[in-house]
């Protein structure tokens, strides 16, 4: 098995009184795609958001247990959350480019982390857009508003924006659920490319997508991880009855 990039141990999360994650132990290997599947409300998106501490913005959230990235507990007191989020970038469910130019969207991350040199920024912008497989489509209109792009392009732009801060982990929360099939397949190809350089954790509602793009799959149900294994095993040889029921479409 490949080395583990990120793991959680006995991770519990409460929204007020609601126990949303129950003792989750999960390993996310380096340079692999880990897919999180499960019915709506099972905690998979919540889990994803604990991995870069986006839940910090919700006042009622309480967390116990460990989330470890490269041997460091990300909930330790002396953690710099901005550096954590730079290291673990996030792509959201619906494309959310800033209402600025394409260029400024990509340059946003490097700029807030202190990069001012135009030449360096130009290079980062081009490289990020190339890595997100959208450079050819936008290279002639970098100064145009990002909101003028199509939904699929916007989502690839958002991926490029995440890449621009040079993350090591990419967290993707149903990145294709708002997109048409063609855009979806482009993003899936992209994910396949990106896993050479990044460790990817992706939440998806689409079983076929999980089967196509991931190396490992974790099945969440009611805040617990029911089954976690290589994607091949989870889909062809599920050990738990509930996993089998879910992936064959008997519930969820």
């Amino acid at each position, binding site marked *: 098995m490949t080395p583990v990039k990120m793991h959680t141990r006995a991770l519990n999360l409460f929204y007020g009184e609601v126990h949303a994650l129950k003792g989750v132990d999960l390993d996310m290997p380096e340079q692999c795609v880990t897919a999180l599947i499960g019915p709506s409300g099972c905690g998979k998106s919540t889990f994803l958001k604990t991995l*870069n501490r*986006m839940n910090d*913005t919700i006042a009622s959230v309480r967390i116990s247990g460990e989330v470890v990235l490269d041997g460091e507990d990300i909930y330790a007191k002396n953690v710099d959350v*901005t*550096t*954590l*989020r*730079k290291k673990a*970038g*996030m792509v*959201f469910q*619906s494309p*959310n*480019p*800033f*209402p*600025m130019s394409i260029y400024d969207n990509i340059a*946003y*991350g490097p700029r*807030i*982390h202190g990069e001012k040199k135009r030449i360096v920024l130009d290079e980062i912008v081009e490289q990020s857009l190339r890595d997100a497989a959208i450079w050819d489509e936008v290279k002639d209109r970098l100064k145009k*508003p990002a909101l003028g792009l199509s939904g699929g392009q916007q989502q690839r732009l*958002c991926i490029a*924006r*995440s890449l621009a*801060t040079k993350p090591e982990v990419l967290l993707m929360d149903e990145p294709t659920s708002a997109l048409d099939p063609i855009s979806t397949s482009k993003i899936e190809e992209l994910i396949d490319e990106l896993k050479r350089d990044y460790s990817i954790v992706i939440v998806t509602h689409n079983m076929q997508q999980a089967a196509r793009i991931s190396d490992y799959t974790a099945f969440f149900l009611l805040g617990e991880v029911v089954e976690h294994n290589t994607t091949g095993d989870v889909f062809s040889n599920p050990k738990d009855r509930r996993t089998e029921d879910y992936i064959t479409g008997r519930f969820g």
Partner: protein
Amino acid sequence: MTNKTSILSGRRTKSLVERIMNIIFLVCGLASVVSVVFMTVYMVVSGGAIIAETGVFRFLLGHVWNPGGSEFGILPMILSSVLATLGAVLIALPVGVLIAVFLAKLSPGKLATAMRAFIDLLAGIPSVIYGLLGALLLVPAIFKLQAAAGLPNSGSLLAAIVILVIMILPTIISVSETAIRSVPKQYEEAALALGSTRLQAIFKVTVPAAKSGIVAGMVLGTGRAIGEAMAVMMVSGNAAIMPELLRPVRLLTAAIPIEWAYSSGLHRQALYGIGLVLFVFIMVINLLLRQVMKKGGAQDE
């Protein structure tokens, strides 16, 4: 067998009541349009007389306002009005936007609710009260500055600016706050996920995204400042001389009520002329506002 309801009725499709109501609505709507057109025509005709008499340049660019000697140059008043408004907006805009950010994003809910109530109250206070407090508290406070500068004690441009700042703040705050609140939360989330601090997310993403709304608030504030008469009249000293920060100034708005009662003939026509100049200012500001709103709307799409 089931009964089928016929959709055909014996009457015509539009009843008489609906027709009459339509006409009433139309008349009400037209009434406002007609008033504006009538006002415009009347202002141009009555205010145009003095301009025809003295010439555009001598009226607008003349340095001396001396009705007794039939000299009607309103440049000092135009400049005073413009400077007072500009000064007030330049101060109130950053302060107002910061307060709006605080209310929309940073303050705990209860504190924000309480502050908003006070700010709304501020907007509802009659301008003569501002003038009264300004004359009692602000003008004497500025005496010290004037003494230090070797100038006589009096109302001043500075006092007018400070009063206007307080008067236009509620407008700028509430319009900006609404604009900031209406920026989709996803923008801020995305900024945080890229490693922004909360303040970076607010000031580099949310506030720029609310720009058109904030500009609208600024233009509305400008309109309010340039049109204010009562409060500034009570604190500005009202000398029709070229404006300086610590010396008395007379604003366009103040000139009309101050001199109205004893004016006649050409002098009164000059006051109409001042009215026309103000009217044009306000029209320009309104056109600007429409332009800003339109642009903002187009950006959102």
